């Protein structure tokens, strides 16, 4: 609409110049420059680990840069903490919401911004919160407890908090990660309104789609360096992708067509309860066949966790049947599932997959202590276990000094390789892979993807759960959508579009396929 050649661009809201930040063993920011104009939505695009979060932590005064300068509205800014940043008009919407579940919406919004008072006037604060919410179309009950409201609403609490603090510059860190497609649309609407009101927004993401949907300009960073800044309308997804991952890196998986065989895992009328006793899972039919990768997609929190726990024996099911290789799995513990031929790459390497303070060889023992060659008659064969571990480290290229190195000292990629090595050593019939590439670098992701396809091609079954739709689409032979604990759609890969899946993830079912208008 505006002719950028003749009208000077608006002044800069944020300028970060040649920022360098080193941590022991890592250069997180290696000369990053970022210029954000007032009144624009500026996307900060980069892969996981590219240095986006470090940069924002520097902006917010959580870290001080080793080199470089920060300017806010043209003035040098060297904040010593979030309070000063907030004072200067910055507001942050965190990826992991910084909310206190047991507090009300109002309490969360006013926290730290109560002003120079001792006594709290909750009623007045609630009125003020309601006013601001109304002004920006953020429909929310100020007296609701945060633990009782949906994830989308929780995000609004974070936005409200920034507005309540008087922020004019809003930073959103991967704000769509936990949202349904509809909630994402709502968020875009809110951001448009904030911009129309003179606000400046930095939108951190690693998804090209979002850059195109929401931003005016985009800055791409890779491995701690600024690659470039573009007008969103003047660039292409291909250009941005190349900038983000570097040329020559192909993330598409070389995957011959599948030849599915017999059904190896079958769940019928399977029901399970969640942690708080509510009905969390209600699976009519789930079949997993040899020689296929079955992708389970859905927005986080729609029963994926419970499904995985039931399928791995960590959570009992209350009704229905579950068989693996024809064996009834009712009442079995995780080791019973292992005995039936199941292996499991858990979502959380640190909390589930590994005992970080155990040496590698004892981590290889995890889940294997019940049988030879690792143990016999309750005694652990440490020599055998160590030599097996050494072999696995070689075979799977786990880079560590020795089997007695503690798992904590390995990089994420090497930790994941160790887990995969352990799980495949058992030669399973079924492999559950949950978010198997989360937080890994490109090389490790490729390794994991290749392994999953290898497993499939050796006539085993793989169940892949991922919140990354691209990963699901790249790897799966069949795809099921999980919504509110139910399977709402089953698709053959290549016969479903991304946007169609998005609709199902947002609650559409096969039955009312035509009932909900599409958002495209």
């Amino acid at each position, binding site marked *: 609409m505006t002719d950028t050649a003749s009208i000077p661009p608006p002044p800069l809201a944020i300028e970060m110049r040649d920022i360098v930040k080193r*941590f*022991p*063993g*890592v250069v*997180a920011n290696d000369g990053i420059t970022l210029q954000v104009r007032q009144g624009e939505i500026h996307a900060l695009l980069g892969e*996981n*680990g*590219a*240095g*986006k*979060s*470090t940069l924002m*932590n520097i902006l917010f005064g959580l*870290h001080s840069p080793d080199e470089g300068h920060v300017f806010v509205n043209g003035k040098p800014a060297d904040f010593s903490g979030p309070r000063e940043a907030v004072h200067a008009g910055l507001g942050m919407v965190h*990826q*992991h919401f910084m909310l206190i579940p047991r507090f009300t919406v109002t309490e969360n919004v006013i926290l730290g911004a109560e002003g120079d008072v001792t006594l709290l006037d909750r009623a007045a604060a609630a009125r003020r919160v309601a006013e601001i919410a109304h002004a920006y179309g953020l429909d929310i009950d100020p007296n609701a407890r945060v633990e009782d409201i949906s994830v989308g609403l929780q995000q609004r609490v974070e936005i409200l908090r920034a507005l309540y603090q008087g922020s004019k510059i809003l930073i959103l860190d*991967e704000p769509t*990660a936990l949202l349904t497609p509809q909630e994402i649309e709502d968020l875009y609407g809110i951001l448009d309104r904030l911009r129309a009101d003179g606000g400046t927004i930095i939108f*951190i993401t690693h998804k090209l789609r979002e850059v195109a949907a929401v931003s005016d300009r985009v800055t791409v960073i890779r491995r701690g360096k600024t690659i470039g800044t573009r007008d969103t309308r003047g660039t292409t997804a291909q250009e941005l992708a190349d900038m983000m991952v570097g040329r020559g890196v192909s993330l598409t998986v070389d995957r011959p067509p599948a030849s599915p065989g017999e059904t190896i895992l079958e769940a019928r009328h399977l029901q399970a309860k969640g942690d708080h006793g509510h009905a969390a899972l209600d699976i009519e039919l789930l079949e997993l066949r040899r020689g296929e990768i079955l992708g389970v997609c859905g927005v*986080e*929190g729609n029963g994926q*966790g419970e499904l995985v726990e039931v399928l*791995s024996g*960590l959570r009992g099911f209350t009704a229905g049947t579950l068989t693996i290789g024809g064996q009834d799995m009712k009442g079995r*513990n*995780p*080791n*019973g599932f*292992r005995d039936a031929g199941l292996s499991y790459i*858990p*979502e*959380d390497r640190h*909390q*589930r*997959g*590994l*005992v*970080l*303070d*155990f*040496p590698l*060889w*004892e981590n290889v*023992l*995890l*889940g294997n*202590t*019940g049988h030879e060659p690792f143990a016999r008659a*309750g*005694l*652990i064969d*440490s*020599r055998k276990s*160590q030599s097996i571990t050494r072999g696995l480290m070689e075979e799977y290229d786990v880079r560590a000094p020795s089997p*007695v190195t503690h798992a*904590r000292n390995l990089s*994420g990629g090497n930790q994941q390789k160790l887990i995969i090595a352990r799980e495949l050593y058992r030669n399973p019939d079924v492999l559950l892979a949950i978010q198997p590439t*989360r*937080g890994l670098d490109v090389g490790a992701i490729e390794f994991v993807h290749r392994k999953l396809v290898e497993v499939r091609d050796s006539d085993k079954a793989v169940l892949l759960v991922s*919140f990354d739709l691209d990963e699901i689409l790249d790897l799966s032979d069949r795809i099921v959508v999980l919504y509110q604990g139910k399977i709402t759609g089953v698709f053959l890969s290549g016969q479903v579009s991304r946007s169609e899946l998005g609709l199902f993830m947002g609650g559409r079912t096969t039955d009312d396929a035509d009932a909900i208008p599409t958002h495209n």
Partner: protein
Amino acid sequence: MRTRFQLTTSSLFGAFGSVAAVIVALLLGAVVISVAGSDPVEAYRALWDGAFVGRRSIGDTLIYTAPLILGGLAFAVAARAGMFNIGIEGQLVVGGFAAALVGAWDFGLPKVIYLPLALVVAAVAGGIWGFIPGFLRAKTGAHEVITTIMLNYLAFRLITYLVLKQDKYLPVSPNNLGTDKVVDAARLPRILDGTRLHAGILIALAAAVLLWFVLYHTTFGYNVRAVGLSRGASAYGGINWGTTIMIAMTLAGAFAGLAGAGESLGLHGRHYTTPPGYGFTSIAVGLVGRNNPLAIILSGLLFGALSAGAPSMQSADVSKEIVLVIQGLIILAVAALEVVRRLPTIRARMAKRTAARGAARSGA
């Protein structure tokens, strides 16, 4: 086997840290002694003489060492499973009392049967007292720090009641504030002439080696350590948390019960109602030994020497309770040095987390 004895930098630091902690605590103790108007050098010399100079002193040191090793093991096995066992004192007196009752009843059994029987009863009784908080934690979530303390006081009061009021039914002696004398066939034999040193120290050494083997070479020990380090990962590995902590706490109680048996079947020949006060010192033994059974032998010896030498400090006009202060200071010093040791890890972790914060979408 090789791995366990490998001197890694971290275990070296651990050993060094423990020694440094003891030195720092002794120096601070010296300050307290000076402030109280006595000569710390003289006091510590008296302490040393009382602990190590002469056959009798060495005997005394080992007499104290035995229950402290067992108590340290009782702390360590629970701690390895992630449980903080402050109930050692209660488990100890229950075991000691039960053993003394069996030993004082005079079943007329030969020693080869009677003594082991009394020891087993002590381990079982202490084990039950340890099992209760383990069970409560596993089934109701009640924190063991509070339940074990309550069970300590409950044990003291119950035993006092039984000794004072149930002499009609039990072999107890209200006048002696304890049980009746344990018959010879159930006594732990003396093992060093001219001292009161009894075979309890041998039981303690055997128990330490046994626990070391169990922890590092059996699947049960593996389960205990896995549960203590990561509940999530151990569940993933098919290890039942509740069962494991219950067994670990039972084992802890059994060790403490054996310590009590050493007192009643070995040292005194009866069980007295006054608690001996090894419980909290045992925590220090475990912490200084870094919950490693073999290191606990050494730290048990250290604290045994402190306890044995303490009364000698009276000659330097220093009250023996200063040793409790020194023990507390040792714990504080160990905790402070632990921070120094962790520093590189903490820094690296923070750096890593910050660098990859955008990366990890942590799951629900």
